[in-house]
């Protein structure tokens, strides 16, 4: 599809614009669906019904109503805030999440930039999010925001290590940093997926990556940066209206990024689980999105199952459990590759 766009528009600014807008459209539609799913899943897990009125059928229009409300709200800037940083922060957070979409292969035919260091690029560019969150927390000139931002920074920096180490194990097996090649390496039937490879080491890798990715997206049980009961809303306490909505969309964009990466690295990405059956450029997008949505469902499932970690428990989990396990895992996978190939 990217090639098609290049053929149609030529290599100019329009090509860049069109191929960069496609993921944005996807994020916005996906975010609406995911917000609705989150509302309904959380409600039903607590034996409630959730929104039932907006849009007649099971409240399907609730996210639309929420977005409309946020659009109409006043954009409040606190008097004591550092105005320039305050206004810039939500966009920086969103850019960090959005830039990752450039290297996500939605299907064999559509990838924003098929760079040979795709996964490395995504890990690197996701780190910008920390900057944006720190900016938001600092510029709000508010204790809650600052504490939330500091916690986020500590959490993200800590959890990047186990998640990167987990990714490294997969890269060793695939022998490539390109996400398209990692997908191709798992094509064929679902037992070729890396989650079943080098059993059980890559499965442990997947668990480590999944836990770390939950922490990186600031979702429960790792949502101490925005722990309602302690910090009101954390780094975006002072934000209102559209700027708050951008933070929210950025969180959901990040959720899908980590879910897509997990499904690419461990569950074959766009490759069909049934060999050549239902495989192709369009089916590729279908499989990646379905796998990603399953991951997102598990994220929500965990969110409504587990209570929030304490800060020290969070650090304990990262530094004393996940990191050593990831290191031992890399060693075991490496040994396996050296001995058995």
């Amino acid at each position, binding site marked *: 599809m990217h090639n098609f766009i290049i053929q149609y528009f030529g290599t100019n600014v329009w090509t860049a614009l069109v191929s960069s807008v496609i993921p944005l459209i996807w994020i916005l539609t996906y975010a609406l669906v995911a917000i609705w799913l989150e509302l309904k899943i959380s*409600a039903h897990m607590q*034996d409630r*019904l959730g929104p039932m009125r907006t849009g007649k059928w099971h409240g399907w229009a609730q996210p639309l109503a929420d977005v409309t409300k946020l659009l109409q709200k006043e954009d409040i800037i606190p008097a004591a805030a550092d105005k320039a940083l305050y206004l810039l922060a939500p966009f920086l957070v969103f850019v960090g999440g959005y830039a990752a979409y450039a290297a996500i292969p939605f299907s064999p035919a559509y990838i924003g930039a098929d760079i040979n260091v795709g996964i490395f690029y995504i890990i690197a560019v996701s780190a910008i999010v920390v900057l944006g969150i720190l900016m938001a927390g600092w510029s709000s000139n508010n204790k809650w925001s600052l504490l939330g931002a500091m916690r986020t920074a500590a959490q993200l920096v800590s959890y990047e290590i186990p998640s990167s180490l987990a990714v490294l194990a997969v890269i060793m097996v695939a022998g490539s940093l390109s996400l398209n090649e990692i997908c191709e390496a798992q094509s064929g039937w679902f037992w070729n997926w890396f989650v079943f490879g080098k059993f059980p080491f890559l499965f442990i890798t997947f668990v480590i990556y999944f836990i770390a990715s939950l922490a990186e997206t600031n979702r429960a049980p790792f949502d101490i940066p925005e722990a309602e009961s302690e910090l009101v809303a954390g780094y975006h306490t002072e934000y209102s209206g559209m700027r708050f909505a951008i933070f929210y969309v950025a969180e959901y964009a990040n959720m899908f990024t980590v879910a897509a990466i997990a499904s690419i690295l461990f569950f074959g990405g766009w490759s069909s689980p049934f060999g050549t059956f239902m495989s192709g450029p369009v089916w590729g997008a279908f499989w990646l999105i379905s796998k990603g949505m399953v991951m997102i469902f598990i994220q929500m*499932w965990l969110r409504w*199952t587990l209570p929030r970690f304490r800060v020290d428990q969070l650090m304990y989990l990262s530094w004393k459990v996940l990191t050593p396990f990831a290191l031992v895992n890399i060693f075991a996978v490496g040994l396996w590759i050296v001995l058995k190939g």
Partner: protein
Amino acid sequence: MSSVSNYFRNIGKGFWTVLIGMKITMRHLFTPAVTIQYPDARMGIPERGRNRLYVNMDDCIGCDQCEMACPVNCITIETAKSLPTEDLGLTSTGQKKRLWVTKFDIDFGKCCYCGLCVPPCPTECIYMTSVYEFSAYDRSELVYNFTTLTPEESAAKVKQAQEAEREAAAKKAAAAAAAAAQKAAQAAAAQAAPASPAAPAQTAQPPAQQPPPADKPADQNENKS
């Protein structure tokens, strides 16, 4: 040694308990929700639940017993005597109605839903219904008028009763005057002849004892009548 095994046991336990928790939430995901979609669906109320009062004015004889029973004085009843020529009909329990109920107001802003007004009613015309939603924008809207007479009719009935009373009083006064005159004449006669006692029999009307009605009238969930 023990700390190392503790470390691994802790991790294993943590992992296992997370799985148990996920199992519980997954089970609840498919448990039917306990929510009742309120305005569309309602919870049943108890059979003898005490909610809004209703007065069936067809059966009301204006005896004031509910007003007297009310601990918060939320019932206001005013009555006017009917003329002997007027026939107010019978209650469903076969009792003759003698009074025009010119006012029967219940202030649900005051009502404490104790239900004490229900048992004294001799015709069982005041009773609790199952209506429990009657919010109002103004407190005066919570005063429900149950009387079937319009204000003009009520005023006319009161006036008529007062006139009848005045007439009766005038008649009585005239009769008393006549009696006094007669007495004086008799006294004058008695002075001539020994008096003969002639006491006119006074017809004392005993208060009407109403028997309890045989059947309770069907529930009516009407609004203000």
